[in-house]
């Protein structure tokens, strides 16, 4: 078994109203960052998991997203798996 650092990005589905993203967009425009066309705010969840392989760590994380970490009605998720090193172990 090895340790893996799993990064899960949970993002509101495209087309869904994201009032927080909209407020940040307006704030960026008020700072004259007119080049920003859209802002979407999600969340990042880090897991430190034990698994036989990176693939197994990913499969586990996908199941966790479907069952709890992301809302299937409103959110998509992306998963990145990295073998944990001395630096990454504290997820």
């Amino acid at each position, binding site marked *: 078994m090895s340790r893996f650092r799993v990064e899960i990005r949970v993002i509101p589905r495209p087309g*869904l*109203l994201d*009032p*927080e993203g909209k*407020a940040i967009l307006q704030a960026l425009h008020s700072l004259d960052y007119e080049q920003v066309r859209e802002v979407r705010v999600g969340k990042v969840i880090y897991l430190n998991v034990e698994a036989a392989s990176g693939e197994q760590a990913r499969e586990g994380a996908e199941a966790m997203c479907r069952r*709890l*970490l992301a*809302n299937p*009605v*409103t959110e998509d998720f992306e998963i990145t798996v990295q073998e944990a090193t001395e630096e990454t172990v504290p997820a």
Partner: protein
Amino acid sequence: MRVVIVTFPGSNCDYDLYKCVQLAGGAPEFRWHRETELGDVDVVMLPGGFSYGDYLRAGAIATLSPIMDAVKNFAESGGPVLGICNGFQMLCESGLLPGALLRNRSLLFSSRDVLLRVEQTSSIFTQGYDSKQILRMPIAHAEGNYHADVETLDRLEGEGRVLFRYTDRDGEPVDGANPNGSARSIAGIVNGAGNVMGMMPHPERAVEPILGSVDGLGLFTTLLSPNAALGTG
């Protein structure tokens, strides 16, 4: 009628519901979320509040509480379940009701009275009201923006499962009367079998004149009436 009110860590409307059920002639009892049995019960209510601090998503973690398996079994066997505010969020998160409750479009926690129009009077939850009756009761939430895909919204409307809508005093569901951005001004819905209902406004906080409105009481007196035709909704 025996009513179980499930209390979660962070529930804060459980005592309001208890008092309200008593006023409506029911026999309330609390059930802690760590328990696994509902016992001999006629109606289950999930109260408002901030279960688990609204961590992850409002209502999400409460759906994993031990008592929730019993609540799901009770609902699936036709038992009436009412979820108010955080209880509505739990029902959506658990899949007992379709859709999800997103952050209010204002991004603000909104605590004030709203007006609701009764959309259906054939439900066990609304048969005490007149069709298109306008009710006044408070909301108190930051995540009450009802969302579902267009097919789901059309199905809810087509099957008469939207029970309450936010409207102005003329009974029009205008945008300005929608306190949170809910799709089609939806404030409360029922499941396909008619026995599981969720709503964001607080009928239990509108049951005595001193509270400013008694418009919520009818929901409870009808639901808890011994003659209620349960399961015909």
